[in-house]
């Protein structure tokens, strides 16, 4: 473990069940530096939640070791718990329904996290004001929408100013504007308070905007570790030509696919042609469209994280 590392996992593996054991994690190793915002990407059932739960001391790994804040998650679980914050997946029901948001936060932070009551009250005001929640602090938890409940769960995770925070799909159930506000808040909070944050997400925008580094995990195996831009660069198809319509006539599509250098085509949300050299292929694409009498917008785009995600997934399935 390096001096600057907040999280270190070494050869972590996890199997569920007995005779028909399911391997949820397979030899996963990585580290997260202090103050880093680290994203865990992967499809459903990839092993992201299992990994987070192991590091949050909620689940025992079958083999391997991990340290959080320098403490061993098995041998020093009490110390790990005292420095972490945690917001699990599907937590929208995980507070006291008939208590207000404020009362819930006071209970969890003061009773279970031992934060002095005055400090709790101060932090509730600070955090709620930063994410625009001050006007709903005295509403009962049951009266909140799903997205609002999720916000309370995120607030609860940082209420005691943890050194390391684990957030399992924090923007789930949030509308795009609120999700962006929460992302912005968490990122700046982590920077200002020196908090290390590990979040799992399917949301590529969230990963791109929030994370300093990413890990892509599928079938319990770590498949990529690096920055969001490095992740995108790993896509073998370097460039994309996007045609501003959702679908083209089958005849036109087959002509476009015959152009040299174009390897693939998708049509969600718009038609996308994947190629090694978009500049070179562009004139031929325009010629085909023109010959068919189609006057539609055409542009060259960079592969997004979403493309990279799909690429990794397809490559892994093909293996």
């Amino acid at each position: 473990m390096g001096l600057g590392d907040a999280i270190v996992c070494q050869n972590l593996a996890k199997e569920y069940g007995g005779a028909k054991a399911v391997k949820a994690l397979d030899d996963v190793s990585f580290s997260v530096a202090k103050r880093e915002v680290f994203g865990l990407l992967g499809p459903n059932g990839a092993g992201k939640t299992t990994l987070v739960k192991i590091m949050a001391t909620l689940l025992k790994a079958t083999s391997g070791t991990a340290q959080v804040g320098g403490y061993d998650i098995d041998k020093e679980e009490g110390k790990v718990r005292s420095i972490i914050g945690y917001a699990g997946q599907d937590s929208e029901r995980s507070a006291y329904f008939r208590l207000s948001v404020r009362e819930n936060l006071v209970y969890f932070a003061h009773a279970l996290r031992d934060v002095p009551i005055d400090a709790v009250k101060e932090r509730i005001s600070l955090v709620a004001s930063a994410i625009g929640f001050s006007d709903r602090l005295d509403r009962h938890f049951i009266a909140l929408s799903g997205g609002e409940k999720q916000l309370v769960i995120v607030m609860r995770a940082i209420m005691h100013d943890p050194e390391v925070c684990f957030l399992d799909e924090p923007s789930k159930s949030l509308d795009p504007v609120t999700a962006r506000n929460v992302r912005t808040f968490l990122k700046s909070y982590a920077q200002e308070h020196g908090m290390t944050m590990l979040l799992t997400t399917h949301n590529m925008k969230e990963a791109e905007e929030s994370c300093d580094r990413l890990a892509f995990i599928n079938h319990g195996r770590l498949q990529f570790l690096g920055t969001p831009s490095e992740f995108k660069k790993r896509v073998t198809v370097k460039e994309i030509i996007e045609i501003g319509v959702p679908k083209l006539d089958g005849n036109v599509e087959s002509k476009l696919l015959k152009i040299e250098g174009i390897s693939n085509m998708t049509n969600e949300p718009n038609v996308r042609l994947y190629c090694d050299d978009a500049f070179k292929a562009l004139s031929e694409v325009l010629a085909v469209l023109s010959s068919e009498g189609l006057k539609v917008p055409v542009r060259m785009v960079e592969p997004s994280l979403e493309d990279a995600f799909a690429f990794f997934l397809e490559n892994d399935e093909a293996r």
Partner: protein
Amino acid sequence: MASPLKLFYMAVWREILTLTRYKANFVFEILTSLLFAFGMLVFAVAFDVSVLGQTVGSTNYVAFVTLGLSFQSWQGIALWNAAGRFQGELSTGQIDYTFSCPFSRYWYVTSNIAASAILSILFFAPMLSVGLWFTKETITMEGLLLGLVATLVSVASLAQLGTVFASLVLRYRQVTAVFGFFNFAFQILTGMLVPFQLLPLPLRVIGYGMPQTFGMDLLRYYAMRTKPIMPVEYEWISLFAQLAILSLLAKLAIVYLERTAKEQGLHYI
């Protein structure tokens, strides 16, 4: 790490808020306790007390049963409250958050039981008052205090068993049938509703191992001057021995079962 005292008073605060916000339930909780107390007063007129006189040395069956029922209100909290809380937390997913926090699981469970027991005084107090009214000829202040101490020690022992049951929920998730089995045993084999001395010997042997048996017997002895099921000194020793043994068992159970539950995760199945 949060202290046991803080876990306790914050749980009381949370329970009071919650209780008063389910208004219909709150009102009916009070009404039910008054109804039971009134029912016992009416019952007093009709009951043939000769059998009771022969076995426990008192013909005051109303006091006998009322003290038993008041005891039962605490017994229910001590035994099942923590298990119910864990089951609720498992189904809402809250347990993941609470178990990521740095506090003693043992003190968390017992503090929550104690908090609920405080609130169940709503039921306990009217029933106990009726029971004591019927014992006014035999009870003394010293007897009342000793009876209450015996009750508290006995309930504390039961809370340890409740902690074991809560731990079973962590490990096995659905244990309703286990509750049903023990609940029956606790009500019948401890002399709560029928005199302990009337039970066949094999059942009495099991009853001696249950904390309620001596707690309730001492409460009745001090309040009603009933015949104790064994010399009171032995009953006190047994009561404290049970508390010590069950406390140890509860601590071991919660540590062991949390560890094994972590093999599969703490979610509800």
